[in-house]
């Protein structure tokens, strides 16, 4: 049975939000953004800015993976 759209949207955006949060904590615990950005054009970006952008990049990444999972859940025969 096809699950409703809202459930799919939540299934993509919500777990990816949680894992992106975890990934952000782990990543920025290990790496200080001011250290690895100093040689780039983002040298003036504040740490809070780097954390924020990092979180949203992680979220895009993890929601991409959730999206693919949802996509592959569809039966491959049919159509």
């Amino acid at each position, binding site marked *: 049975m096809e*699950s409703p759209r809202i459930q799919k949207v939540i299934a993509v955006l919500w*777990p990816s939000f949680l894992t992106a949060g975890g990934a952000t904590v782990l990543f920025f615990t290990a790496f200080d953004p001011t250290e690895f950005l100093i040689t780039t054009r983002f040298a003036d970006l*504040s740490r*809070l*800015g780097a954390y*924020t952008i990092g979180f949203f990049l992680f979220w895009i990444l993890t929601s991409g993976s959730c999206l693919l999972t949802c996509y592959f859940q569809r039966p491959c025969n049919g159509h």
Partner: protein
Amino acid sequence: MSKEQNVAIEDELYAKREKIYPRQVSGVFASLRLSGVLGLLGIYYLFPWFNWDGRQAVLFDLPARKFYIFDLVFWPQDFFYLALLLIIAALSLFFFTALAGRLWCGYACPQTVWTEVFLWIDRKVEGDRSKAMKLDKAPWTANKIIRKSIKHVLWIVFSLFTGYTFVGWFTPIDELTTTLINLEAGPWETFWVFFYGSATYLNAGWMREQVCIYMCPYARFQSAMFDKDTLIISYDEERGEPRGSRKKNIDPKEKGLGDCIDCTLCKQVCPTGIDIRDGLQYQCIGCAACVDVCNSVMDKMGYERGLVRYTTEHSLQGKAAHVLRTRIIVYAVLLVVLLVGLIYAIGQRIPLELDIIRDRNSLYRTTESGLVENIYTLKVINMDELDHTYHLSISGLQGASLITRTTDVKVEAGAVMELPVRVSIDPYKLKQTSTELQFHLQSIDKQDLSIVETGRFIGPVTR
């Protein structure tokens, strides 16, 4: 979960959500929940304002990469403690779930706590259940528009204040307040005030019980921690059925009725809109509102309390209830061990860190006098709140000498010092290409403040 239940859930999602108007309830568990809510909100909104030693007492200072918890200062290098703390938190969730069911959901979850506040605003502005339902059904009169606007303005103000406090846990709240008032706050701080504020507004204002039912991972897996001795809220079917309304002074047995008078108050107070008399349901967050309201009805009828009560599956079946079960004991022992471990580890923590970074450009070099030399950068991190001078020495490599501009390294409180050093040795004394050597740092002013880290010395072996 059976197939029929699955279908039911999906039907619910297809169906337009019916708005829930939980009726206000008073009683033992309502008071418990209120004290829980007030305590947690107190911690959340007041803690950032407490000062300790001239700084914010509890501050997870993300821009400075330091966590302050009263006297303790944690660095990213202390991640181990955070990991341990998270494991302890997860384990306590298991422990309390196995013991008393969804205590977390009913009393402590931020979703519950903030929803309670929003419901309180609703009731102040729109009135209790019946008045609010009437208002929603009524046409858009001036009164309705005014009441709805007031409600949303209050929701938004409270949400933004919540978002502002949230940021105040992670950046110094004094600075944040001044910059926000002067409209000079940094773009990222402002962003997070609004982001967290809108999340609060949406989750506690609009989504409410749907967060628990559709989004919460804990709600989905908590049943795995349940057993037949876990405390659940349950309706005593045997005693209550057959349900039916009756006059107060009538003997229900004469009419062939059970104790349930079918007043549906248990349904009206439920924040997730279920009927507890239908049995154990995954939507039940264990808030015990139905217990309170049913007890008050039983009192009025002159019946015994506890038609809806905290109980266990075993005692409902008339069997003995066991509090001490294997899983409870295992969880408890693990919890105690980890907690003691964490406290001990923090007590033994040395606020000094030494990172040894080898020169990346060359493995080794040979000096004019024929010695082999390795170059390192030592990163000395003084995580203490006092300045310290440390004596630097090496060991583990027979005949090696340490060449540095100073062996007494002074590092200010909370500072990182980078010190280039060289280690040289007569190649005839090298027994292997790669040898371990130890760098020692010993504080001059404090005997127990010392650290040893191992590095590698690389050089050609001459035979």
